[in-house]
């Protein structure tokens, strides 16, 4: 609790310092807008920011959910089948190394400049952390627990549901948290590249006009959307904990 207060204090101090610095040192508002100007921009353009913010938020949320489903499904399939792993893992690992964000223009070529392009790109970006988290989680079950299941005659399904899944959840949740951030980033990069709508477009547009306060207002909204997406994962974590009615087993990395 004290730690949280201290953290909040440090952040508040940064904001206050920022406001004071901009007031006392004559910095052009085009270079760095003070927090008060950002609040003003938020209040001045609510319709514009809400419209573009809504576009970004629902594309990111949908992209995240689809990426989570696809990542968990393929992660489960890959950890179940050695053949599939041998065939696909080299590609997965290669794509891990490659700067995936750079592939955004390809999606424009394939899907045009609309929402499908941005969502497909967000799914593509957010998919891999979920896949890796699912696989690492399912592989991380304690071997003693698995042996016990075999000795007690548990079926494959019982083992998966009762033992392997709870062990996998911490890693899976870590992957989902990364994916939540990545989905939003994917949508924003897509908006940079397609330049049609969304907060990423507002950021680009505002920057080209030198409207720094508007840019920072849009970024503030992006942070809020990011926090909401992160909150969705936290809620899932909480719900699982309630349903499971026991503390999650701490994985190797917890």
């Amino acid at each position: 609790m004290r730690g949280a207060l201290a953290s909040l204090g440090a952040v508040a101090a940064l904001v206050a310092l920022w406001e004071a610095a901009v007031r006392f040192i004559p910095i052009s508002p085009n270079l760095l807008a003070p927090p008060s100007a950002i609040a003003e921009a938020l209040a001045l353009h609510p319709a514009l920011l809400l419209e573009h913010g809504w576009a970004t938020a629902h594309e990111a949320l949908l992209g995240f959910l689809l990426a989570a489903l696809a990542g968990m499904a393929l992660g489960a399939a890959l950890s179940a089948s050695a053949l599939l792993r041998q065939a696909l893992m080299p590609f997965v690992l290669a794509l891990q190394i490659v700067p995936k964000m750079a592939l955004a223009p390809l999606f424009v070529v394939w899907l045009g400049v609309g929402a499908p392009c941005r969502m497909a790109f967000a799914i593509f970006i957010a998919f891999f952390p979920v896949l890796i988290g699912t696989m690492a989680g399912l592989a991380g079950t304690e071997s003693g627990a698995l042996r016990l299941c075999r000795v007690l005659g548990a079926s494959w399904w019982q083992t998966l549901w009762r033992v392997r899944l709870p062990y996998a959840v911490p890693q899976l949740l870590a992957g989902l948290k990364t994916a939540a951030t990545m989905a939003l980033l994917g949508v924003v990069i897509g908006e940079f590249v397609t330049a049609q709508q969304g907060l990423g477009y507002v950021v680009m547009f505002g920057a080209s006009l030198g409207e720094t306060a508007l840019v920072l207002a849009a970024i503030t909204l992006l942070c809020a959307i990011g926090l909401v997406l992160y909150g969705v994962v936290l809620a899932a974590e909480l719900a699982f904990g309630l349903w499971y009615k026991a503390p999650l087993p701490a994985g190797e990395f917890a």
Partner: protein
Amino acid sequence: MTAARLPAAPLLAALLALALWEGLVRWARVPAVLLPSPGSVATSLWEAAPLLARHALATGGAATGAFLIALAAGVALASLMVLSPLATRLLYPNLLLFQLLPKVALGPLFVVWLGLGLPSLMAFAVFVSLFPVAIAMLTGLRAADPLQIRLCQAQGGSGWQIFRYIRLPTALPFLFAGAKVAATMAFTGAVVGEFISADAGLGWMVMQAVGRSDTPLIFAALAVLCVLGAALYALVVLAEDAARRRWGTRR
């Protein structure tokens, strides 16, 4: 046996995928604008080689430079935070705040601040790749065994000795994990910066090719980019191996 089989199987799978891709494009007559065949990408790669090499040098240089700066700054920041509790109080919450921020979205601001060109591009790439290094290094430095630290203190070890002989060796594997993320992020930062506004580099070339619907050239430029990104990643892995052999860090 397994050592010889391991590299062969993925290579075979990749070749098979390429052959399948070429066959599919030819058989279904997919227009080159949508999906160029590997052959036409190779042709484009060959024809645009001098141009690609020049822009690859620009992007690769910016990304590698940014990566090195981010590495040094991240290590310095994390070390400062471990050595000074006051620095931790001041910096750590802000570091976490930046972790939550969609950092790549701040790209256009760097253009406003530093104008077009290499300084703004590199500053953005450093900004994007600094945080993984700082967080990983900090986690690593804090992961040191407290018993070892107490023992060192009891023997009269100085703060610097504790840092050098106990914290640093523990942190190395964490640092390399962070460096791997940072290597990819540095390239991401450089290319996204070039998407936003640039007059050189592979990202700029890709955007130009998108404008002309020259899909084979897009693929060629992206292929070069992927190879560059993988090369920096491989260098980090090599450095990790060397460090492990030299200092015997166990993972």
